[in-house]
């Protein structure tokens, strides 16, 4: 179909990616109060552990990696449910799936925006929570890096679960039930990276393994996500 009008420039997929990310950030900015929920949940969950396990700093230091990572995992899960919810209900998801551009990229942009909004503040706050849990000074780089590498992988895999359950009215904990088993490797390598950096052992290799999982998720998860969304909108 030859289009003669001058403005027939075809927007490149990457501009669509950029536009999608900025659009999602703008939408989130309008609902900023909602955006802080994962952050508050993260802080709340971490502060519950000392209340349960006792304030002894030596003991807390041992638990710190597990506490931080499980809290990060749960707060990522908490937010995933609303990842496609608004787009599904107002019809934007249908426009995305019938878009001329590679849907994989647009969907990846949506997960990226979701990660920026939910995980970055989380990583920033984790530094202060580390102090709360008596994390030794030399362990902070490992903690921040492991969360930075682990949370996008969790967002990507979790997005597939969100895509599968977006069409359901009564979802409840189905999303968590589907996605949590898939988080086991990320949790193991992430928590262990922090653990070994506390005891000043080699914390780089678990981090690299976590990076491998991130790369795998980056390449495969978007395609599974598109398939999931297509089945939900079927």
């Amino acid at each position, binding site marked *: 179909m030859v289009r003669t009008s001058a403005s027939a420039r075809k927007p490149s997929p990457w501009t669509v990616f950029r536009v999608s990310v900025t659009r999602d950030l703008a939408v989130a900015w309008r609902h900023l109060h909602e955006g802080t929920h994962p952050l508050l949940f993260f802080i709340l969950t971490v502060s519950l552990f000392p209340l349960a396990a006792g304030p002894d700093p030596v003991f807390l230091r041992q638990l710190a990696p597990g506490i931080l990572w499980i809290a990060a995992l749960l707060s990522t899960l908490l937010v995933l449910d609303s990842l496609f919810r608004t787009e599904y209900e107002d019809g934007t998801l249908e426009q995305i799936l019938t878009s001329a551009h590679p849907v994989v990229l647009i969907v990846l942009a949506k997960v990226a925006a979701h990660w920026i909004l939910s995980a970055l503040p989380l990583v920033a706050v984790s530094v202060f929570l580390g102090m709360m849990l008596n994390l030794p000074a030399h362990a902070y780089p490992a903690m921040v890096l492991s969360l930075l590498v682990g949370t996008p992988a969790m967002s990507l895999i979790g997005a597939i679960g969100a895509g599968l359950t977006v069409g359901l009215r*009564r*979802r409840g904990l189905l999303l968590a039930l*589907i*996605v949590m*088993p898939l988080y086991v490797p990320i949790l193991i390598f992430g928590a*262990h990276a922090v653990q070994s950096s506390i005891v000043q052992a080699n914390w780089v290799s678990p981090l690299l393994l976590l990076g491998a999982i991130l790369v795998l998720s980056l390449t495969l998860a978007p395609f599974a996500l598109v398939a999931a969304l297509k*089945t939900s909108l079927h």
Partner: protein
Amino acid sequence: MAMRKPAQPTTSRSRAWRWFHRFGSPAYFYFFAGRWAPRFGHLAVAFFLAGLYFGLVVAPPDYQMGDSYRIIFIHVPSAWMSMFIYVVMAVSAGIGLVWRIKLSHAVARSCAPVGAAFTFCALVTGALWGKPTWGTYWIWDARLTSELVLLFLYVGYMALLAALDDWKTGSRAGAVLALVGLVNIPIIHYSVEWWNTLHQGATITKLGRPSIDIRMLVPLLIMFAAVNFYFLAAMLNRVRCELLDQERRTRWVQEVVNG
């Protein structure tokens, strides 16, 4: 169980039989499964009994663990089947998703409960074996932990299928989840092994296979055959239910139902 089949065609190929000849057709598979499920069932029972006899009577007690090792004749086949059935389920679901074959979706849906049953058995027998051997019912051994995660994968798959009321949408969504799970299984297995060697590097608590002499290997192989036959029988039975339920509008189901 007098299972009524439509009238055998006396004359040349009559219309009633036309739909039978495509192997993939649900009607054909329904009657094929009807014939073979009981046969596999009987084979499974026969092999189970043979396995039990060789395993519990003929096989000598282990010099180290005494008789408690005899649980492996049920634990190892179950553990192996739980992994094998997940792969069969994921592949069948993938075929259904890509080539839009209703029958392979039905097979995938039928595999899940059988796989979950085997995973549950593997966990229970593993725990019961742990008590006499290591003194506690649950040990965070690499394989038992992987089985536990596998059970969660099965439960997640079945929960998703139960949540989606439309059969077709549910099958396709389940297929996506099964395939994602399939990709993750080796990663989960490796990460749990890695995690296990790190935290319990010192004490080797792997479910070490006792030195296999021939009288112990034979029952194990017989049990493998038994669980495989059982899987086929149970799965085919479930596929018949799925097909009957999904094809209730078609004429061959009316004939089957009204006899």
